């Protein structure tokens, strides 16, 4: 039939008119991301970290600075207390080698990606920031940790994750 293609196309657009739009209104609502999605931030669990500085050794750019002090936590077995744990994300290339190197699952890549700042100085992530940060670890480099169910994230933060 002549004009069938045009009518079909008109039908397609008309059906879109009554569908829910696919748009996600970004700043107000966020699209769900998968557990292995790797953002631009680090998640650090202080109770698992022993201060071994593997991450700092494996970092190709040397962006991690660790200063340990055994006198800060003298009674917690074979574990150093940390005075400084700074990550210069301005120089970091987010290769994730530090996360792979960590033997105690204390360091993760995070799922957040809203880290735009106005100065280079503020891209330095200090230890207090890492302590207080909203922890949304990504399963990148530790896929076995996010459980059998895809989308389940509890096992990443469970107490037995690191030990």
């Amino acid at each position, binding site marked *: 039939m002549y004009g069938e293609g045009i009518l079909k196309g008109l039908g397609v*657009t008309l059906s879109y008119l009554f569908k829910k739009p696919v748009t996600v209104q970004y700043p107000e609502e966020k699209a769900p991301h998968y557990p292995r999605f790797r953002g631009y931030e680090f998640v650090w669990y202080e109770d698992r970290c022993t201060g071994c500085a593997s991450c700092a050794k494996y970092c190709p750019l040397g962006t991690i600075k660790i200063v340990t002090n055994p006198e800060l936590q003298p009674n917690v077995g074979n574990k150093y207390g940390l005075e400084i744990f700074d990550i210069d994300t301005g120089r970091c290339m987010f290769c994730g080698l530090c996360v792979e190197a960590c033997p105690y699952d204390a360091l993760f890549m995070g799922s957040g990606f809203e880290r735009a700042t106005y100065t280079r100085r503020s891209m330095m992530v200090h230890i207090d920031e890492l302590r207080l940060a909203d922890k949304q670890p990504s399963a990148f480099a530790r896929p076995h940790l996010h459980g059998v169910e895809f989308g389940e994230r509890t096992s990443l933060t469970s107490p037995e994750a690191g030990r």
Partner: protein
Amino acid sequence: MAVSALATGCQPPGFFDGQNLWHEWVVNFFPRIGDSICRGMGGHADGGPPNWLIYLVLGFLGSLIVVNIAALGVPFVVLLERKLLGRFQNRIGPNRVGPFGLLQPVADALKLMTKEDITPAAADKIVFALAPLAFAIPIILMFAPIPWADHASLANLDIGILWVIAVTTAAEAGIFMAGWSSNNKYSLFGAMRAVALLVSYEIPLVLSLLGVVLLAGTLNLSEIVLDQRFAPNILWQPLGFFVFIIAVSAELNRAPFDQLEAESELVSGFHTEYSGMKWAMVQLGEYAALIGFSAIIATLFLSGWKGPLWIPGYIWLVTKMAFILCAFIWVRATIPRMRIDQIMAFGWKFLLPLSIINIFATAAEVIAFPDALPYWLIPINIAFAGACVVGMAKLLGFQPKTRKIVIPGRPVIGDDTPGRIVPLMRGGN
């Protein structure tokens, strides 16, 4: 003097007497207002103001109303178009400014007013500044003969349709001025395409109108509306409606005929170099033409301000206009842009013969039934229109043919056909 400012100014005594229902007031809103102003000024009595002054005041007020319908309607039509286009494309559309984005026109207007008004150094300055006016003003003139209700047109012109066609055609001069004076080759491309489109589509546009004119026996838009007292003209004139609505969308430079401002190739065609309020004038002209032509389509083919229910005529007209606007937006959201040679071929080979067939068929019907067309002609007319469209498409070969392309080179062993059959697209592969 054919001008009837806000209907016929002072009505003769007794025209409204004895009917004080609010409903009658609402239905005859525009004539009532005109009558009240006329009486308030003293009417035609001795010692009152001279008649020319009354006509001047009434004409000025009526022009103010109609021009503001055009100028203030445009931002909201733009908003409607953006919203609907968004929904047709599975998006949301503007929703940042105000509730549901309703204040978006205000934000747009403020932005345009505060924008820098740039004139290119190489442009022809005078023509460049005049072109938006030459484009927008004739479009606004088009609103004069549209009947918004019974006895409520700004100018009850006896040559209403001719006036509309004449002023909208004059607006094309503004497009060519804009394209020429910008001193930019893409603007000039857009302007040349505008002129080509105008020449191709003005003829089927006017010829498809003639069917309606033959039925009504007049060019007066108010009379044409009154003539559609049994059924809207779309039922008597399906072929004319088909040709007219396609030719109008070409005349309005809308998709799929928006070759002259094709964003992907010509940036914006003739108004590439415009910014600020000059660009706003161009946009005003385009969308005012959209509003005006939807009013014309409603008037000519959908029985204008007349409706089956006791609802005021202007509300009927605006409702029909809204439907036509939505249909235009729907088509724009669906059909991709045609190539310029396809547009030309479509206009000259397809629409023009159809409109001529329509004239002769309508003339034969009017001669056969001089008083009024019988109702049993409606299905016949619709079937005739469908047969004409399909037959013309068959005659012109608007279907993919096949042709054999011989691929040169060494023949493949076991393959005894040294070519392959590919569908022949219109315009060549």
